[in-house]
């Protein structure tokens, strides 16, 4: 008898993808002044919709709307603001399946993740910050916490709606209004979110969404009418933003790249460590800034661990992201796929050994099989640069000191993982790692109450929890 999983595709009938999407400014959908661009399903390369390309004038209009709305929104009682956010959280829960399917269609990530991770966390994030809106004076930011004004927010394509929630929820709770630009390749759930704002009866102008490419984001960040810049994305763009805001009064938070070390000691809970390593690098196709892209394994258990790891990675099911049994979805864009391929070739050329999971890649769409490089050295590009794909670089160490030294030997400092059954070792290693999030005996965990953000070139500021309010409040003496 056999037991092979049959196709189990999630129905797309719950979503209506429109042919055209427009900006959401001052509570209404309105056409832009710079034409449109196409957005596709990266798993099939099928056209999904046309989306407005945001111009400087569009951005200007959105910023004006946000400025106009700021007066009332910031003067509204915290409890009333909070109720709007609670409403939004509830509508997200009500429309969760629709959001999950649309996210998967536009992003390429598996429905299992959008359904079980992304969308539940989005609702949770709004729920958490909703409760802060009338408790700002208890947040420890001084006696009279005040909003900054208009926040310009630019988010990436890897967790489109989740990153939107990380940006919008704390901003609104603190009394700011926002102009948000979703990523060029994944604008659709942000525009569905705009509909949710309408359903929630959110006052016009409190949330404005302008779609477009990098130039739209640049126009937003450089706009003189904003008081706050929040960006999640690459370190390269983060640097440009930090330069662009120099000399202004704009408060900035940047959540940038990473090259996290996942350190496995020889006394680790092996099976859970294997899961953690797999989840660390193959969750969301490795399109995760905090991905555990560098595996550091203690030499004394290397062979056994790698044998288990290869076997486990071979069980990952790659394919149709809408199939409920798919573990690995599509790469988000042709450009990202090209970058992953380029860095992988650099891995070969630098002398690392490439292992690729035995899975068939679909003919259409952007795909990259789970890949593990061994015999990687600290000096290899794949040990230093963020690949942002399903590619793991494996290195070894002999002692805890060596593990810490190698882990910290990076310009990034976003996250890290530690696997050991020894409590004292966890605490010492965790305190020695220069990283903003340390997962001990777990990896890639997120929660709205838990601050997230990096050290060094991984950016500054924190999102989540009490700490996540600070970037949206005036902090005085």
């Amino acid at each position: 008898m056999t037991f092979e999983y049959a196709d189990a595709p999630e129905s797309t009938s719950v979503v209506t993808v429109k042919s055209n999407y427009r900006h959401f400014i001052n509570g209404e959908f309105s056409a832009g002044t710079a034409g449109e661009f196409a957005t596709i399903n990266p798993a099939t390369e099928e056209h999904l919709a046309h989306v407005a390309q945001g111009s400087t004038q569009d951005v200007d209009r959105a910023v004006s709307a946000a400025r106009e709305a700021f007066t009332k929104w910031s003067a509204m009682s915290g409890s009333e603001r909070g109720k709007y956010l609670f409403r939004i959280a509830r509508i997200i829960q009500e429309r969760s399946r629709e959001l999950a399917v649309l996210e998967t269609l536009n992003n390429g990530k598996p429905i299992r993740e959008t359904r079980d991770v992304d969308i539940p966390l989005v609702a949770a994030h709004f729920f958490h910050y909703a409760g802060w809106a009338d408790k700002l004076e208890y947040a420890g930011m001084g006696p009279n916490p005040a909003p900054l004004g208009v926040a310009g927010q630019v988010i990436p394509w890897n967790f489109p709606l989740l990153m939107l929630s990380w940006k919008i929820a704390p901003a609104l709770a603190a009394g700011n209004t926002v102009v948000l630009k979703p990523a060029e390749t994944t604008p659709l759930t942000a525009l569905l979110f705009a509909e949710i704002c309408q359903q929630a009866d959110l006052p016009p102008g409190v949330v404005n969404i302008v779609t477009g490419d990098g130039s739209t984001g640049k126009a937003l960040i450089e706009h003189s009418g904003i008081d706050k810049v929040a960006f999640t994305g690459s370190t390269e763009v983060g640097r440009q933003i930090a330069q662009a805001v120099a000399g202004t009064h704009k408060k900035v938070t940047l959540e940038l790249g990473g090259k996290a070390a996942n350190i496995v000691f020889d006394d680790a809970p092996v099976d859970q460590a294997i899961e953690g390593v797999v989840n660390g690098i193959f969750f969301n196709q490795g399109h995760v800034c905090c991905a555990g892209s560098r595996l550091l394994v203690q030499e004394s258990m290397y062979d056994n661990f790698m044998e288990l790891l290869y076997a486990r990675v071979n069980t990952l099911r790659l394919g149709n992201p809408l199939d409920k049994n798919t573990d690995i979805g599509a790469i988000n864009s042709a450009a990202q796929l090209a970058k992953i391929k380029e860095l992988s070739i650099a891995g070969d050329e630098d002398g690392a050994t490439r292992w690729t999971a035995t899975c068939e890649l679909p003919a259409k769409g952007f795909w990259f099989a789970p890949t593990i490089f061994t015999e990687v050295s600290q000096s290899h590009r794949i040990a230093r640069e963020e690949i942002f794909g399903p590619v793991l670089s494996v290195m070894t160490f002999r002692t805890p000191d060596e593990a810490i030294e190698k882990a910290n030997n990076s310009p990034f400092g976003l996250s890290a993982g530690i696997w050991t059954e020894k409590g004292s070792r966890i605490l010492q290693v965790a305190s020695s790692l220069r990283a903003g999030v340390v997962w001990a005996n777990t990896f890639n965990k997120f929660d709205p109450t838990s601050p997230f953000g990096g050290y060094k070139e991984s950016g500054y500021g924190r999102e989540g929890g009490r700490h996540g309010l600070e970037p949206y409040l005036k902090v005085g003496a």
Partner: protein
Amino acid sequence: MSESLDVNRTAKLFIGGKFPRSESARSFEVHDQEGNFLANASLASRKDGRDAVVAARSAFSAWSSATAYNRGQVMYRVAEIMQGRRDQFIAEVSAWSSIEEATIEVDAAINRWVWYAGWTDKLSMVTGSNNPVAEPFFNFSIPEPTGVVAGFALSDSPLLGLVEMIAAAIVSGNTVVVVASDRTPLPAVSLAEVIATSDVPGGVVNILTGYAKEIAPWLASHMDVNGIDLSGIGDSELAVELERSSAQNLKRVLRPNTHLDGLSRVKMWLETKTVWHPRGY
């Protein structure tokens, strides 16, 4: 009545716990507000800046991992030693202000050290948190120092402004490289002597005298500096240039005229580290 000629102090730099002259062997004249010559101060070069960063980086590991209690006692000790030299500081500061103003500033500076000394073991309580995540994990966030912080002192608060800048950074375990005001550097030189005799490990505080516009660009672009305090940069064009250049490695930047002090200023040089661990057996 025998006359004894004053033995004048050579105003030197303070790098890694030592008092070198500038490697450039240059100095500059320091005058009081009436224009009277006071001293030749060492004129730090970019290489002195570089050496100071190396010293600060070397000191970071031990200082940041010292216990909060220990850091608090060391900082309190600075206040004690300053108190003993109170008259000297008043005399020095009054070169650019009245005796009354100088007295207020010096007393405030001493009190500032005491205030900050008491913060070391409270920062984690006040700025940290235990986060009730929705899964079976123990999750906490703690503040950690950013690393090496470079700063440029205000000229119109030659002692208090400098103390605020240094203390707000080292209280949490950062190490600093500060450039004293070129107009009013002598209290900074004396502060270095206080720090050198106060159990502050060498390299935790490095004090340079010289021209910010000469040294600052090198510190702003330095890839091993994690934060930059531009409070004393009066030239707004220079400030913008320094902020731009600081973006190269995403330094945490305190802009001029931000007027942060106390806990808000301390937070400028803090990172939040969040640690997750499962619960269960």
